[in-house]
């Protein structure tokens, strides 16, 4: 029996990658998806799409002769995923093993942060009212998130220079502007869901979530013109009620979103040597975790 257990564990370690585990899982976990399956499946599709794009960019470094054609091809692949999204979260190492190898800390920090995203949505979707109980529960989840110092992305606001102030910055949006707008539309969708779920009545919440889904499809209906973002959408602007109620969480989400753009820039920029990708990935992930790196003056006190 012991041999069998060792064998199973051994095989598992060869075939899978151990991401962070949130233990114990919140009682509300994944209830958002039961109530709002279309929105939940889109969130799963975003994770899938992000991993797929990162892997494609990594494999295509230095080999893209026609950026517009590459963008068109990859956009059509991702749009197909969005139109037929997965029912469960897809493990990134299965879609993007090289990306997972090159960005070990980033991937784990994203996973941890995505769990926070998910569980906050789950609490907001299931809490009976919008009052003290819901607020306490979200703050409890957030405290659990922050307690993991090895993986938590900081909740201290960063300046725009965190995203745009590196030698490789803006490479992704300059090369693939439509794809960049698709990713900003993902960010917009994620943060607008929080606002939708803070409507006072269940009927309004249901309506607002559906409208957010519809608005997302409108945003990506005719890229690049349909998504009118000049800058990455930020949580305090797009979800002001949520930001007022939970002032520490928006910076954590925005820092996560900025780190996604940084990864895209590292993968696309010819200024980053192939041999430096892993190093830059770890360096920028640590910056995302460090409350003092690119610290902004415009932020509520932690």
């Amino acid at each position, binding site marked *: 029996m012991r041999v069998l257990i060792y064998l199973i564990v051994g095989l598992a370690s060869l075939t899978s990658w151990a991401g962070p585990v949130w233990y114990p899982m919140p009682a509300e976990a994944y209830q958002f998806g039961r109530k709002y399956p279309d929105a939940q499946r889109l969130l799963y599709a975003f994770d899938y799409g992000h991993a797929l794009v990162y892997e494609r960019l990594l494999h295509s470094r230095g080999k893209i002769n026609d950026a517009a054609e590459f963008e068109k091809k990859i956009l059509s692949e991702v749009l197909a995923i969005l139109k037929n999204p997965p029912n469960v979260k897809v493990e990134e190492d299965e879609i993007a093993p090289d990306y997972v190898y090159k960005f070990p800390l980033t991937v784990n920090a994203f996973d941890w942060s995505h769990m926070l995203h998910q569980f906050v949505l789950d609490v907001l979707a299931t809490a009976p009212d919008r009052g003290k109980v819901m607020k306490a529960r979200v703050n409890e989840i957030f405290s659990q998130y922050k307690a993991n110092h090895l993986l938590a992305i900081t909740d201290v606001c960063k300046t725009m220079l965190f995203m745009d102030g590196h030698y490789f910055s803006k490479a992704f*949006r300059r090369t693939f*502007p439509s794809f960049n707008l698709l990713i900003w539309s993902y960010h917009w969708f994620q943060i607008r869901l929080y606002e939708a779920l803070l409507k006072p*009545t269940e009927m309004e919440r249901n309506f607002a979530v559906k409208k957010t889904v519809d608005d997302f499809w409108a945003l990506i209906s005719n890229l690049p013109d349909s998504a009118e973002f000049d800058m990455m959408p930020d949580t305090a602007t*797009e979800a002001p009620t949520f930001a007022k109620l939970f002032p520490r969480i928006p910076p954590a989400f925005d820092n996560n979103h900025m780190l996604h753009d940084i990864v895209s820039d590292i993968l696309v920029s010819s200024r980053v040597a192939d041999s430096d990708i892993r190093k830059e990935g770890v360096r920028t992930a640590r910056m995302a975790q460090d409350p003092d790196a690119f610290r902004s*003056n415009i932020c509520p006190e932690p």
Partner: protein
Amino acid sequence: MTFLNLFLLACTLTGAFANAQDVALARAGELGCHRIERLRDLGRIDEGYLNKFQALRIEDISTGGAKFRFTAFQAPGLNGSAHQIELLMDSAGKTIGNHKETKNTDGVSPVWPDKDPVTLTESGFHYIIENEAINPDVRPFFIALSEAVIAQVQENGQTVAKVQFKNTQSAKVLEVTLKTDGTVISTQVK
């Protein structure tokens, strides 16, 4: 559907797009820079509006549905005229129209080795936005900004960018000196 339900639905509909906030002139200026980048990235304007950018003007016009007029100028040619692009923005700094004016000239601009001059000017804007609330000397450049000009100069043996901001409330100038990679070296209100 009851009257209450209809009322709540109406509230939701009107609230859906009510999150845009009015912005200050410096914020509108920064958003104008981002719009220039977007237009260039999408191939709607040529590279010159980014790489030969030299100055911008921002005005509160509050007319015809537009709140701000943002004009970006390329380096002027020998006859003093410069290609320019004008953006009209709403009170949230969202561009609602643009107009290019191509002059019969082509200005000579310095070659920027790292970041383009629009991005460097943005870094200057970030300094204003980050510090207006804590530094009273910076505040007029946030609320009453009128123009910004960028120049490439040699200082202490290195090539640097100097972005000078002016405002309509005083004759003072805010000068932000940056490395060509966008790192702020120093700032001075004079």
